[in-house]
């Protein structure tokens, strides 16, 4: 068998490292031929997703190299690269990817020999580690070539799209259509009914739907539009369409890598001794993608693990020491809604297996997306976890009603309003439970937004794609609505809602947009504050 030859992708900045590699050439310094250099203008031009693409596409190791701090041709591009790289490393560490596979190094123009040495060392290290487990095998590549058996006709049948009455009500209810003149659920359905498959699949707007269910809930026919979208995106994804990926597709890469990864994740760093878990418990708390989103969205001031920790604190306080799995993965929600069914199935299979092995009677979620995915999508694809599923707000409401759970007086005093998350609300019909909890906390004055419960407005972003000005305008409108209630705090009980609202508030130009600043807080964090000793 031929010896394993690692493949290294090196992103080299034009002014320093690329020139250093040139100098290695002019000086005839020999090094192994395993590296392929991509020239960028600045190490600051290298985005974290570029590194993940390299890994997904077969690289055994990735090197990002630029000028030494202080020498950057663009003043601070290299420092920006370093900051992004630090975040990237936190994520790859959680994934369990060996640290030798992803490197950042400063190599100046004059350091041709150091470039050569760096490559040599990396090749040696990678030879010892072995090939990257993410190298696509011939079989998986062939499987990708084959189209799925699904056709548009099947989809129309399964989702009852044929029952469309041509009334256009869906479009008038659609929050995206309200802002984007080019988006119309009605027209999309119309095209499907006359079989314009190619046109639909290659229409970027296919990825604008938020699957918020505002349309189908009131469709006088029986059209399940979000399900239609979900399945049609499978066809689009097979054809290589993804819409306009937000964050460069970094999060999608992470999910795909997680799904294929044989590595054991390092996802419990946040689980310190103050939290109590018990691996024989009847109850499992599902953490999901929270540890990955935390470092990524730090720049927005959102730490998704705060919600996880608060939820665990609440459960512990109520005498529950749940199972926390050490290797659960993302529920697959975004992958499914991107049409990447292959990734979704891998994740579903993995999570179903693990939760079944844990032998629990109930799984509690702090994220409505995870909840909906386990409850509705897993069974649709044949994955049965076989136990009760609950959102933490439901769990708390139960405790309040059945067991007289009380909260401490005087811990919080706030005027709050509440965002019904689509996945909890219209998808699963849960509107009362979170309100029950809010009512029960003394010091909370609850003010409803104008559009609430099944009329609630989605927080505005689908599976991190097509995050455009229309989605932004939606959110601005929603935040203004929240502020108009007079509330000082907007309570959400979905980490995505919190992320998307905080993102909408980013206003860092000198000329400012509308003031939509309002405190955004998860229900779990609010409850954790109010627990009696």
């Amino acid at each position: 068998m031929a010896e394993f030859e690692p493949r290294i992708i090196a992103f080299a900045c034009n002014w320093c490292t690329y020139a250093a590699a040139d100098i290695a050439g002019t000086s005839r310094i020999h090094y192994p031929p395993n590296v392929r250099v991509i020239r960028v203008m600045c190490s600051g031009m290298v985005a974290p997703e570029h590194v993940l693409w390299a890994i997904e596409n077969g690289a055994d190791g990735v090197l990002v190299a630029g000028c030494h701090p202080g020498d950057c041709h663009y003043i601070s591009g290299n420092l920006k690269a370093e900051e992004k790289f630090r975040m990237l490393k936190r994520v790859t560490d959680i994934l369990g990817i060996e640290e030798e596979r992803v490197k950042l190094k400063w190599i100046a123009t004059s350091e041709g020999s150091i470039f050569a040495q760096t490559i040599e060392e990396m090749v040696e290290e990678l030879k010892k580690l072995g090939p990257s487990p993410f190298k696509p095998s011939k079989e998986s590549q062939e499987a990708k070539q084959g189209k799925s058996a699904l056709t548009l006709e099947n989809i129309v049948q399964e989702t009852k799209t044929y029952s469309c009455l041509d009334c256009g009500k869906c479009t008038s209810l659609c929050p995206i259509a309200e802002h984007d003149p080019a988006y119309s659920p009605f027209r999309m359905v119309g095209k499907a009914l006359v079989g314009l498959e190619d046109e639909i699949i290659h229409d970027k707007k296919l990825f604008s739907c938020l699957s918020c269910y505002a349309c189908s809930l009131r469709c006088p026919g029986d059209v399940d539009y979000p399900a239609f979208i979900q399945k049609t995106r499978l066809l689009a994804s097979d054809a290589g369409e993804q819409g306009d990926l937000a964050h460069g597709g970094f999060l999608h890469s992470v999910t795909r890598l997680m799904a294929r990864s044989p590595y054991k994740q390092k996802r419990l760093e946040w689980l310190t001794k103050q939290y109590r878990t018990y691996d024989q418990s009847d109850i499992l708390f599902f953490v999901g993608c929270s540890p990955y989103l935390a470092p990524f969205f730090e720049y927005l001031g959102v730490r998704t693990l705060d919600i996880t920790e608060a939820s665990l604190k609440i459960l512990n306080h109520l005498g529950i020491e749940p199972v926390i799995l050490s290797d659960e993965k993302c529920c697959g929600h975004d992958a499914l809604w991107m049409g990447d069914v292959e990734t979704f199935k891998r994740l579903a299979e993995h999570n179903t297996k693990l939760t079944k092995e844990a032998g629990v009677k109930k799984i509690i979620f702090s994220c409505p997306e995870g909840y909906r995915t386990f409850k509705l999508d897993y069974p649709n694809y044949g994955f049965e976890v076989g136990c009760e599923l609950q959102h933490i707000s439901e769990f708390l409401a139960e405790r309040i009603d059945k067991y007289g759970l009380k909260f401490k007086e005087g811990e919080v005093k706030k005027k709050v309003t509440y965002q019904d998350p689509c996945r909890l609300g219209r998808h699963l019909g849960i509107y009362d439970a979170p309100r029950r909890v809010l009512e029960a906390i003394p010091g909370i004055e609850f003010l409803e937004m104008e559009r609430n419960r099944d009329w609630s407005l989605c927080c505005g972003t689908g599976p991190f794609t097509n995050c455009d000005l229309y989605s932004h305008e939606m959110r601005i409108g929603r935040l203004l609505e929240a502020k108009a209630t007079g509330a000082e705090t907007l309570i959400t009980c979905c980490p995505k809602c919190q992320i998307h609202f905080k993102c909408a508030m980013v206003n860092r130009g000198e000329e400012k947009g509308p003031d939509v600043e309002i405190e955004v807080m998860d229900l779990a964090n609010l409850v954790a504050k109010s627990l009696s000793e």
Partner: protein
Amino acid sequence: MEKVRIGVYVCHCGLNIAGTVDVQELAKYAETLPHVVISRDYRYMCSDPGQDLIKNDIKELGLNRVVVASCSPRMHEHTFRKACQDAALNPYLYEHANIREHCSWVHTNREQATEKAKDLVHAAVKRVYYHEPLEIKESPVNPNTLVVGAGIAGIEAALKIANGGHKVYLVEREPSIGGHMIQLDTTFPTLDCSECILTPKMTEVGHHPNIELLAYSEVEEVSGSVGNFKVKVREKARYVDESKCIGCGVCEQKCPWKVPSEFEVGLGTRRAIYIPFAQAVPNVATIDKDRCVYIQSGGKKCGACIKFCEANAIDFNQTDRVIELEVGAIILATGYDLLDSNQIPQYGYGKYDNVITGLEFERMTCASGPTQGKIQLKDGRTPESVAIIHCVGSRDKNYREYCSRICCMYALKHAHHLREKINAAVYEMYIDMRCTGDAYEEFYERVGEEGVTFIRGKVAQVKQGITEEEKGKLIVTAEDTFLGSILRVPVDMVILCPAMVPRSDAAEIARKFSITQKATGFFLERHPKLEPQATAMDGIFVAGCCQFPKDIPDSVAQGRAAAAGALELIDRGKVTIEAAIAHVDEILCHGCGICEETCEFNAPKVMSKNGRMVSAVNETLCKGCGACAVACPTGAMSIKHFTHDEIFTMVRALAGIENG
């Protein structure tokens, strides 16, 4: 999109590439790649016949993309881009694969090197598919120049440009030009009288038809980019009509209000209405509004100057005036400050009489200074012994790590004057003697021959003498490192050589002009060796001590070098705008401002447009570094020629997935 037709050219580079890489196999491989219409190999692609191959194929085969696999793009990318341009193909529809510096010159195994070369060509062919024609834009250069700071560096810069026939706006913050050099007595090593060599230049500046002198003025705001800057300058009110004032000085004599003189570094006084020194340019009076009793009392008290001014030049109704200038280039020559020696209390500055700085000593020895050139102690006596302490705050991790370059030389100069004028015993307390210029070492030797005592040891402290014998003396303590013993040297006067530091408002100046400071606080040049006058901002130059401590010859040279930089721009008349720059997809943009916050060059700006916030990129400011595109959360920002698709397709081709 029109059908893409790619031509691939593999260079042998004699045996440089062909000796290791199988170039024929490589060219054959390239033929199999998508959209490749022709694939050739040739001995020297950069030669005229080599380039002709490309040009002919473009014309005859209707190529609309070209890939050359040869040396580093840093060598010949521009050559082949030009060849494309000559054949009427947009130069940005060209891609370069480096199979020499990155392949044939660093690998020895022929098979492996050829495989790698194939990957590199594969990536280039995949990428060139996504290239789009980019417009090469030019913008005209405004032939006026702004020089900020009228010390010796600024004066030299202004004169060179003005003598070349172009207009200069020379802005100076103080009431008169001259900077620190006009405060000096003599200059080392020639001992030229500073005023004598500088004042003719100052006069020339004052009268030059091409120089508009804006003294007692400050830059408020700068916008625009190279070739087209807009600068707001505040002309501060002197309360004296410059056109009427004849500089007779009667107002100064009659003004009753005395104030420590900034020019005399506190050793002398001026009045509330004053001409800073006799040879001031412009030679007009200025009223210090904070000290003028007439102004402070709202016009009720004093007014002596009005009474006595025969030219009727006093005008208390004057207000600051803000004007806007349009210039093509800017030269910053804002000079330096000295470290406040109060920060080093062990030397007794500010505590004991007769501890003074080198600059104060300059004013003392200067014949036109506050003591008419008499070197004297605070009580009027002539000092019999003087210690000169080097490196006060320089070469010191506690204050400034760097060497301030000029102090050893002026310390020698002061020693010389002390010996010559008053025959005082002089002790030079030094660590090293840095005499690196032309005739500097010889000057050091001369001063040594004049009987100056050199003690190698950094002074620990200066104390007051307490014994009867030493009363009134300053005791300087240092280890003589050569003798290995601690010395106590009682002297009458101590002269400190404080570190040269950036101006106290250097950070604000840097921010105004969008340039950066080094860790030391001095302005950052584009390259310390090869571009000491340019900054990261095209069209903005630095000269003199604001860039780093230096002596007068170097300041002059830098002022003139900066002028050459400005003249280059003016002469060329236009600037080429970088084409591979940032671009905003307005549908995806939220107007969040992260791009604006990230950019070092002020290129993207969020603004209100059609009722929404959206980012717009100033094409002349953008350098195409990519930082904003990486920071943009929605993918709205991309860099032309380095788009998401382009990078992705290269990664895919090189990471191995497409090679099975």
